[in-house]
């Protein structure tokens, strides 16, 4: 690792992020490597280890199409910093994008489903790059390591000794639970927005993405669901979105086109919708999921797919009247033409519960026709063979 003396870094301070007058200046140039400051070296070493673990992670998404989309966008937003950023797409239905002090960026799959356009996704990425160029990530990492004890589960003799299953205490996951300061957040907001404009993307996405997340939190609150990662780390999100809107409008004028629908982004969602939304429904957090589905319909995501997931939501929520809602939703999805095979199967199960054996069997047969290699064939055939459902038996 090339060591650069600390005073030399300070001289490189005034490097603008964007052409023309920069809102806030980057503290590090493209191609930055850490100074000889002992703890900074230590932190880079740790994150280098975490990045190695990320590369081998079982949760890393390998799909080429998704990776091309996200990495391509990240590079576009990053501009001169493109070479410093490495993007890791992680299978996790929560909203998160975070950068480590060495330029490794994690983006969770739940971020893709919460952005309405590639501009909004780019806004999230740009915001994180803003933190990186201002060294907030380093400062936060320093604060973080004081507040937790580290490493793989081997370091925690406890987990080993007791067999208690801990979520592995990787710093990368923990990074999200420590908030940046108000000042740091607004710096990142401004840098992010400017980076969007510079990349030919819509700077208005910088505040509209936060508004979407705030709306999701509001829906969750109504259902008394726990605050998500975004709410925990951005307590003053609404006020910041206002400030950012004002700044963007002053600098770039009012939004002069409708950002939506963004076909490229919607097409990406359509191609991967089942993969992305299955994990979301499984979180059991139905207030949020409902809010997201509504938004997806408005965006123009394939309605057959969205209706199917409404079916999944109602079916799994199981509140009063939900069974009927789920049946309607599956039927609607099937009518629209693009419903996955499991729509027929799950509809069939609901009809079983309503004692509508004939309808259930029709749908079960249709399911097996559409998916002859279905792994639950044995279960479905069991129901096709039964003459009737005996009392008390499933």
């Amino acid at each position, binding site marked *: 690792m090339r060591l650069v003396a600390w005073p030399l870094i300070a001289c490189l301070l005034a490097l603008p992020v964007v052409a023309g007058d920069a809102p806030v200046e980057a503290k590090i140039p493209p191609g930055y490597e850490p100074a000889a400051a002992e703890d900074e070296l230590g932190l880079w070493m740790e994150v280098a280890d975490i990045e190695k673990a990320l590369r081998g992670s079982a949760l890393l998404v390998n799909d080429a199409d998704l990776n091309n989309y996200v990495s391509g966008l990240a590079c576009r937003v990053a501009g001169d910093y493109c070479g410093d950023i490495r993007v890791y797409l992680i299978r996790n239905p929560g909203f998160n994008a975070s950068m480590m002090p060495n330029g490794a960026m994690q983006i969770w799959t739940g971020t893709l489903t919460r952005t309405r356009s590639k501009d909004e996704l780019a806004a999230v990425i740009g915001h994180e790059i803003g933190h990186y160029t201002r060294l907030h990530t380093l400062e936060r990492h320093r604060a973080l390591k004081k507040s937790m004890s580290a490493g793989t589960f081997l370091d925690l003799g406890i987990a080993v000794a007791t067999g208690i*299953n801990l*979520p592995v205490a990787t710093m990368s996951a923990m990074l999200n639970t420590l908030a940046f300061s108000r000042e740091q957040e607004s710096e990142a907001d401004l840098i992010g927005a400017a980076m969007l404009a510079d990349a030919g993307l819509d700077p208005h996405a910088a505040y509209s993405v936060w508004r979407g997340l705030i709306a999701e939190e509001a829906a969750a609150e109504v259902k008394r669901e726990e605050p998500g990662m975004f709410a925990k780390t951005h307590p003053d999100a609404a006020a910041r979105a206002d400030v950012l809107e004002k700044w963007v409008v002053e600098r770039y004028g009012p939004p002069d086109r409708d950002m939506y629908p963004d076909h490229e982004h919607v097409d990406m969602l359509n191609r991967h919708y089942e993969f992305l939304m299955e994990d979301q429904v499984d979180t059991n957090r139905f207030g949020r999921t409902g809010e997201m589905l509504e938004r997806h319909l408005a965006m123009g995501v394939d309605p057959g797919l969205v209706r199917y997931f409404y079916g999944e939501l109602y079916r*799994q929520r*199981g509140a009063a009247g939900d069974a009927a809602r789920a049946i309607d939703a599956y039927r609607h999805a099937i009518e629209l033409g693009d419903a996955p095979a499991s729509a027929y199967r799950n509809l069939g*199960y609901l009809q079983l519960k309503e004692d509508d054996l004939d309808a259930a069997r029709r749908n079960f047969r249709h399911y097996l026709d559409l998916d002859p290699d279905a792994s639950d064939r044995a279960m479905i055939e069991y129901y096709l063979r039964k003459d009737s459902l005996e009392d008390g038996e499933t």
Partner: protein
Amino acid sequence: MNARIAVLAVVAVVAAGCVPTYTLVGPGTVRVGSLAVDAGGEWNHAAAGLTNGLRKGSEMWTRDGPLLDRLLLIPSVPDGAPLLVDRSKQAALPVFRSAMLPNELEELVESTLVKYLGEGNAAVDTSNLRPNRFGDHQGVLFDFSAAVSERPDFRGLAGAFIAGNALYVVIYMAAEPYYYGKHLADAEAVIRSARIVQAG
């Protein structure tokens, strides 16, 4: 977070003067609440102090150590209850409903396993749902695989049935490579032998 809680839990146990232990169960029939299984051989049964997160009356057995293989035996889960105990009240654990059909039981176990392995650190996928008779009761079997951050992959087999409006679940999970296959035959025999016995 969870690390801290786990540490405190164990320090409390250690401070109480005894290190929790494993005891031998099997071979032969073993009662776990109103559930009975044929252990088929010896298993190491974890003392309650070692199984944070399991309901009272549930047990964890292992052959080579819980990081490598484990059997979870979860009897008598009543309507409206989750399969695990969530002390933090933040996990949003899914709950059992006595009218659940096979697909819902599969989903219940799948989402529960994600939380058990650490939400955000694990992805679980189920497959091969099939009917199975457990004593006098009709139930289901299915396979699953789990990807967990910074750990070996897990594969597993779950058996579940409803009796008297309560749920009974026996889950085998073990590390890949090697450990899943090593104990599968014995673990599957335990699962398939699960049945209700009357008290007394």
